[in-house]
């Protein structure tokens, strides 16, 4: 098993340039070249790049949380459903009557709360993360449907401040892309520069060793899920801004996308290893593929087939690269 250094600090600083991310970067560049060749006029425009980032933002924020959970040895299947629940709760008429700030706080609180419940069930109720968060997925979707009466809830004009996150631009870039960037940077800092982050690796890599070293692994595990829920809350704000609605259908299958991005980014499902940068690169690959398909107007079946192949090739590229570096 030739695995690269996960934590050598020089590597970490280098970030994008790291060996284990090189494959992903190469895959991204290749995709970009394909984009340039096939649709030069549309692909290389600022507006298209902004559009890719905007598309990536919602899932991106969730992916940051998912990276923490997975490095910590867990898994969170409930992310999409929790985001939906947060968006619905924040857009009920009752909440909307308090204005945009309360709505945003509400979304974040609901997300964090649901994450906390996951965390309690897993850390103290000792449920397997897969099952606990699956139950949360199901229950949160049900609750969201019940709250919204299965209707899409529009954000009222008084609260259009939220929508402004997606329409207001700073230097040509919508605010929500900045929020995405901020979450990524914060996530990176917490993971790499704080005791919380380093302990996350320990809890995921060798929980017994972490416990023997005096780390409260239960509390830490609980916090990881709360963090993931918190990210879902932020994502709920972004999806509300983007769609101007709260709905129980938001975030369908986000869990698969987020986990796939994390894994393709080199984080092990077994925990203890991984990076935020890898996850975000993985996510961008997926988003870029979709964007290219949109631009080229491929039909869905071919798209799916191509997507499958691209995923395999991207990962093989990454693996090959790793192998050469660390025989």
């Amino acid at each position, binding site marked *: 098993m030739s695995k690269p250094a996960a934590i050598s600090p020089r590597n970490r600083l280098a970030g994008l340039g790291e060996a284990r991310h090189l494959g992903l970067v190469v895959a991204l560049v290749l995709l970009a070249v394909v984009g340039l060749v096939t649709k030069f006029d*549309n692909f290389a425009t600022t507006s298209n790049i902004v*559009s890719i980032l905007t598309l990536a933002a919602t899932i991106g924020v969730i992916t940051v949380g998912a990276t923490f959970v997975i490095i910590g040895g867990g898994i969170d299947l409930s992310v999409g459903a929790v985001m939906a629940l947060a968006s619905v709760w924040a857009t009920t008429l009752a909440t909307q009557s308090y204005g945009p700030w309360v709505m945003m706080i509400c979304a974040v609180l609901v997300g964090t709360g649901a994450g906390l419940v996951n965390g309690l069930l897993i850390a103290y109720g000792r449920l397997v993360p897969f099952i606990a968060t699956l139950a949360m997925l199901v229950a949160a979707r049900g609750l969201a449907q019940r709250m919204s009466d299965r209707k*899409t809830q529009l954000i009222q004009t008084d609260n259009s401040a939220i929508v402004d996150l997606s329409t207001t631009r700073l230097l040509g870039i919508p605010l929500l892309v900045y929020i995405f960037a901020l979450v990524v940077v914060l996530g990176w800092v917490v993971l790499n520069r704080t005791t919380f982050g380093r302990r996350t690796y320990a809890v995921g890599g060798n929980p017994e060793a972490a416990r023997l070293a005096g780390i409260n692994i239960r509390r830490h595990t609980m916090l990881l899920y709360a963090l993931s829920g918190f990210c879902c809350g932020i994502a709920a704000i972004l999806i509300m801004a983007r*769609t*101007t*609605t709260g709905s*129980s259908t938001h975030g369908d299958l986000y869990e698969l996308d987020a986990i796939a991005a994390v894994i393709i980014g080199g984080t092990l499902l077994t925990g203890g290893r991984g990076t935020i940068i890898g996850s975000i690169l993985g996510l961008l690959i997926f988003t870029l593929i979709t964007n290219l398909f949109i631009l080229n107007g491929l039909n869905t079946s071919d798209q799916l087939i191509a997507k499958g192949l691209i995923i395999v090739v991207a990962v093989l590229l990454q693996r090959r690269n790793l192998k050469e570096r660390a025989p």
Partner: protein
Amino acid sequence: TSNEPAAAPSSAAASNPAPAPSGNDQPGTKVVIGFSAPAADHGWIAAIAKNAEAAAKQFSDVEFKPVEPTNDINQQISAVESLISAKVNALVILPNDGQQLNQVALEATAAGIPVINLDRIFPDKLAYRTWIGGDNYGMGVAAGHYIGKQLKDKGVANPVIVEIQGIATLPLTQDRSKGFADALKSYGFSVTAKQDAKFTVETGNSVAASLLQAHKKIDALWNHDDDQGVGVLAAIKEAGRSEFLMVGGAGSLNAMKEIQSGTSVLKATVTYSPTMASSAIKLARLIAQGKGMSDLVENQVPQSITLASETITKENVEKYLPLGFES
């Protein structure tokens, strides 16, 4: 496009009868029509996509530009954004959810691109130039009337009426159910039980199998969608039940053949024809070229067109067979 040469579906060809000698079909200025719809994982939606493409192919002055169909709101928004930045002359949009895509449709209109809203409606009239779609409420009403009348004629009191819906979170499902209930009420009947499936054969099959267990004797069953109807019929056959009459929805070829056979429990289906996509493309072309509908007096295309839901029974099925879509 890179699509395989579409084996022009018989249904689309049939739905586009020889050009009327009105002059409207004479080649005009060249127009680019963008098209965005949900992912074609369903016979009816697939027929929509195919009809749209086939209709566009009939005109030498139309360049058809479909984007990746998707069931993710976020991605559909991006897809439409990409069409806006590609500066198409008209947009035909079948949104996953009208409310959630309202914002981006507004953007398109603001960018001077006329939006032809297909089927699922945008709440904001500013968001589209013309709406064309089926009548979901009317569809429920048609099914309700058919069932109500049949049962009344048989003199059944307190009938057990079962409803199998499509995806519960779609507004169209809620409209259909409301129409159904309202029509039944006029006969003094009400729905005994309803369950939602997911528009697929398999979900139709399992929901029906369980519903048949829950109700040992049924008088009538309305299934919202002929795609899932294949599964529903299989479940009915498997259970060996035939004491009730069944009504379908949408009007697939398969359902019509069942009706025609006369031996099936399926006695009727209420239409919700995907031919509306062909019409939408035609309308988009006219609007983009600044033409009106030659059969009408007005110089411009009307603001909204609602298709009537018709009831297909053994008596009139011959007439509808050419319009049936393959599910």
